[in-house]
């Protein structure tokens, strides 16, 4: 194994191949606080890419109702229970992961630490979706039967990781990371369906196609990315929770790059299970109403600060304006700036793509309408 730098861990780690970062790295930020689990993203992806024979159970994009929802079943819990000692420490004021990654804890004879979902694990795309966790007697009012009176929605696609577990797992080199944009793809002509990638991806975002004996995965809608357009699940997002772009490493962060600003400068968007060691490139603004013990395990040691920053967004016009750019255009916003009460989204050449007022004008109507001499009500 080679030694590579994983900035999300704050240290070097072991990986199957030497460090080789792409010219640009596709990345995204999802705001979990805005997701309403309408699954429009899921359907947009399903309709576009996985409506064929052998793809019936595949959801390259899915939305889970946390803490119970998971697809495949318990994808997160199963690996968390395999991975020992996920402790974070601090060095020079920066968080450093003290535990082992899936690469560093690979058992003898294996390329990574992993597990294989059964067919049945794919049978429930979102178990417990918006359900309470117990039976309700007839006539009873709903009471949450457990201490966790919260849930939130976690939208998931392939993380197009810097150190993909799928790529490391494939003994044939059938999985590759595009040098121009860092998108991770399975070569359908080379794949022989060994399902090692399914075993090795901790996010379980590679799926086996039993009709073609190959494994398939999210391609980040690369034909659209190549034209500067966001993937289907971004463009069709009703809640406008997503923004697509490209991320730099922290030492090369650019304040006018939306992803860099949210991840590196504001540190309001965090990787999903950074302790796995893959340096995933989909970042999440953590839910602000969920107990910190849960979100810290899921998003790492920056969670408390990210929640604090997000809660303070109304007092932070720059952050507010950038959040207003989410879902404002199908084009990929490579640069942004705030001008007064407007957020301007631009392409890589600085040409304006969109401008969005982030403060809606407020109109106050008096309760009594003097003109018509009538008292208004809120009824429609």
């Amino acid at each position, binding site marked *: 194994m080679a030694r590579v730098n994983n900035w999300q861990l704050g240290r070097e780690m072991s990986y199957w191949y030497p460090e080789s970062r792409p010219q640009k790295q596709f990345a995204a930020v999802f705001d979990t606080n805005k997701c309403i689990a309408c699954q429009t993203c899921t359907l947009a992806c399903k309709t576009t890419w996985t409506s064929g*024979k052998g793809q019936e159970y595949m959801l390259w994009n899915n939305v889970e109702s946390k803490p119970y929802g998971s697809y495949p079943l318990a994808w997160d819990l199963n690996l968390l229970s395999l991975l020992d000692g996920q402790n974070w420490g601090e060095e020079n004021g920066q968080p450093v992961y003290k535990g082992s990654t899936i690469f560093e804890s690979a058992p003898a004879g294996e390329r990574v630490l992993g597990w294989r979902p059964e067919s049945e694990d794919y049978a429930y795309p979102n178990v417990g979706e918006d359900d309470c966790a117990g039976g309700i007697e007839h006539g009873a009012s709903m009471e949450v039967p457990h201490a966790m009176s919260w849930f939130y929605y976690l939208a998931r696609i392939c993380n197009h990781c810097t150190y993909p577990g799928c790529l490391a797992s494939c003994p044939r080199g059938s999985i590759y990371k595009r040098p121009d944009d860092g998108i991770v793809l399975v070569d359908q*002509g080379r794949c022989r369906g*060994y399902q090692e990638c399914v075993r090795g991806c901790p996010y379980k975002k590679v799926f086996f196609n039993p009709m073609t004996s190959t494994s398939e995965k999210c391609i980040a809608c690369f034909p659209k990315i190549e034209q500067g357009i966001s993937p289907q699940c971004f463009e069709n997002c009703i809640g406008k929770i997503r923004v697509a772009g490209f991320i730099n490493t922290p030492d090369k962060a650019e304040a006018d790059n939306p992803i860099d600003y949210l991840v590196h400068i504001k540190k309001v968007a965090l990787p999903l299970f950074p302790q796995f060691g893959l340096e995933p490139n989909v970042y999440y603004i953590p839910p602000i109403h969920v107990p910190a013990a849960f979100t810290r395990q899921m998003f790492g040691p920056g969670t408390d600060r990210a929640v604090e920053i997000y809660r303070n967004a109304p007092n932070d016009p720059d952050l507010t304006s950038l959040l207003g750019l989410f879902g404002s255009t199908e084009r990929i916003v490579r640069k942004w700036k705030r001008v007064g009460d407007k957020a301007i989204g631009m392409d890589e050449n600085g040409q304006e793509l969109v401008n969005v007022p982030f403060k809606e004008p407020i109109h106050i109507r008096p309760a009594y309408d003097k003109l018509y001499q009538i008292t208004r009500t809120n009824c429609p």
Partner: protein
Amino acid sequence: MRFVTSLTILALLFATSCSKVQVPTAEVNVAQVKEVTLDPNAAVWDAVSLHTSKMILQDLVEPRLLEPSTSEVMVKAITNGSEMAFRLEWMDESQSDMPGPRHFIDGCAVQIPSKIDPNVPAPQMGEIGKTVEISYWRADWQAIVEGRADNINAIYPNASIDHYPAEAKPLENNPQAQAETAARYSPARALGSRRSGPREQPVEDLIAEGPSTLSPAPNAVSKGKGVKTAKGWAVVISRPMPAGFSASSPSQIAFAVWEGSHIEVGARKMRTGWVPLILK
């Protein structure tokens, strides 16, 4: 007197049983026959000498197989001068022929060096510059070739599918449009991968120059047929005679077996080293 009678009976029993049990040879002797058969139960195999290969773990390259399964494979070989057929038989009580997540498939393979050379390639799928030819049989392809539907309902009988775009009403009288739409949702088939179907043979032709280099052979030339026996599989794989192979120019052969229920797939397999392949 009673003692002598008992000895005589024992001797007769021994002689009778010996007439049915073949003593395995150290090499694979290829018997010359008029006609090559793909039927593992054909009578022609009864007269052919038996070779038994002990199998070893593939434990050299990750992912490795660390727990042994199939202990040996019994091999017979025949040729009609142009085609060569191998009958492989091994123990595997479970029948694994349904693909799916965490479902792996019973299979076997024969491997022969592309060139006859005293300096043989590494038995682990050859090495750079020393190609090996591999004929690989799989139980799921056997079932499909024999008529099992190649669709999701064959695997999950209760599966309910709303709609496939390729089967949309407006396309029903346009086979070309249907095929084009189906290909859009099946990238492996769209690439023309023989492996990804539709399948006409349960055997795949491959070449390799070492681990992780396995590639489709230029032509599909192998055939095969496998049958489930009471305790395992009996499979015949046929392929053209290796280039340069003759009575005076022997070659080498190696075997691999995958037990699907034991999560054996790809590099996770039981294998043999090279065994001399001799034309009798």
